[in-house]
């Protein structure tokens, strides 16, 4: 029935720090082809770590010790380092959080955008240039030639994020990791960028792993969602179901802590001590089980 493999399938992903403590605790999740899957949690929950493990750019102190990551059915572990890099480079792309630090301030936009296409995918320069121009039009940039010749500081925050979105979609990746792509933006610009990502994602049939801390953004952009706490999957659900009937007390607590202008009378509730105790117990049980299994 379900013949197409998941676009991204992560199972039992575990990563540890040098002191042995786990930053990712047997994380499993699936991103179906062409869907937006949100990865939501508070700071330190390990959401960005998952994206980094996939792209093979974990910080030097963090070591992946267990678990498998499969991209369209291909297990990354079965590949050599070079083949893995080629596959990641051809099939995935990243939209980073902060467009200013992601762009080199001393190079023009055009060459920075085409690097991926010419260096990693080996496109001829002419083809890469045309593709960049095409993509800039797709992200509604009216004067592509001006932007191609500009330096990052000459563009606004929203424009820079458009440039990075265009660059991410340029090589037609199957999966894009979007790491808090609208967190640094103003709310009206955020809405435009979310819409842009949703439109392009639909038109190109690209799956997106959308990392965010904002349940509002989750509700608006994703079709399914994984809630993380302390590197552990707390809840996984289709997005409508998560908001209609959140299963885990932590998910409900996060929702109660999020202010809504439509409901000002509700007193904001921080995640309560009972919920935190329950989470601590779950983390401990998971860790004990893991230790038993690994001597």
């Amino acid at each position, binding site marked *: 029935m379900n013949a197409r493999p998941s676009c991204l399938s992560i199972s039992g992903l575990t990563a540890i720090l040098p002191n042995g403590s786990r930053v990712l605790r047997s994380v499993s999740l699936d991103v179906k082809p062409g869907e937006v899957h949100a990865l939501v949690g508070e700071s330190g929950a390990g959401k960005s770590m998952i994206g980094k493990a996939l792209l093979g750019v974990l910080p030097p102190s963090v070591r992946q010790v267990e678990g498998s990551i499969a991209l369209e059915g291909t297990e990354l572990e079965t590949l050599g380092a070079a083949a893995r890099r080629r596959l990641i480079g051809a099939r995935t792309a990243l939209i980073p959080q902060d467009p200013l630090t992601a762009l080199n301030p001393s190079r023009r936009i055009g060459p920075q955008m085409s690097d991926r296409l010419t260096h990693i995918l080996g496109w001829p320069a002419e083809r890469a240039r045309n593709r960049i121009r095409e993509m800039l039009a797709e992200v509604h940039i009216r004067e592509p030639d001006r932007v191609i010749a500009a330096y990052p500081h000459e563009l606004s925050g929203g424009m820079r994020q458009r440039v990075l979105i265009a660059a991410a979609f340029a090589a037609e990746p199957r999966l894009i990791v979007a790491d808090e792509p609208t967190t640094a933006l103003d709310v009206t610009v955020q809405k435009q960028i979310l*819409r842009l990502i949703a439109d392009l994602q639909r038109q190109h049939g690209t799956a997106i792993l959308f990392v965010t801390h904002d349940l509002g953004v*989750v509700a608006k952009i994703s079709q399914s969602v994984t809630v993380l706490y302390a590197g552990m999957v707390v809840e996984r659900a289709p997005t409508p179901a998560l908001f209609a009937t959140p299963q885990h007390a932590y998910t409900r607590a996060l929702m109660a802590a999020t202010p809504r*202008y439509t409901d000002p009378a509700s007193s*904001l509730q921080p995640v309560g001590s009972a919920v935190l105790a329950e989470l601590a117990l779950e983390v401990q049980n998971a860790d004990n089980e893991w230790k038993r299994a690994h001597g």
Partner: protein
Amino acid sequence: MADPLFTVRGLKVSLPDMTRKPLLGSAPMLDILHGLDLAIERNCITGIVGESGSGKSTFGRALVRLLEPSAGSIAFDGREIAHLPETELKPLRRDLQMIFQDPMSSLNPRRTIGAIIAAPMRHHGLSDRIGERVAAALTRVGLPEDFASRYRHQLSGGQRQRVGIARALALEPKFVLADEIVSGLDVSTQAQILTLLDQLASEMGLTIAFISHDLSVIRRLCRNTIVMRAGRIVEAGPTEALFAAPREDYTRELIAAIPLPEIDDDWLTR
């Protein structure tokens, strides 16, 4: 509003535009605020909302006179302060306190929390019973007294922001400027800090200007709201009325752009 704490008339602020500064010579001036007229009510929280570049932080800094306006007047508690020299401002500084966005950069890493909270008290001549005063300030924001001997790096983000609040309130100021003080925090911590601020404001009868880009937070916390854009006031008034019936398109646009945590299929295309 009768007897506001601040009455601002024709407030203009210009700052040197460093991006257009010639190699030699001074930078041309750039107008940031284009003549603001407004009043800030006593004993309540007033929200100031706007996008980046709206001038909301510049306006806040002019209110507490970290910046000198280029034109206009600022009457604080009946006294004109727009162009007071620093020597005359000094006694007033006690009544004009600030809580900063990032406690990591506004708390000295080399000093204990106790020393950080005590510093403004000593500066304003309150050197007696300083230990007691610090303990009271910590208790007020819900931190244990023994935090006085800790350092910044030993605290969580929420605890650090509580220290920032404790320091600002230790002098029992007439006015507190809170500039994006919850924007770096997780929602759970944000809920704690907002609840604390709300409770302190009503207990102590504080007048607070709460600068934020988040209208949901403003709606929850502030009695009055000022919407700013490009150095001008778009609209200002009681928060409830402003949300119930925004007069300006820009305010409506800002409100409509907030992604609420609920399913709404055509929100993106509206």
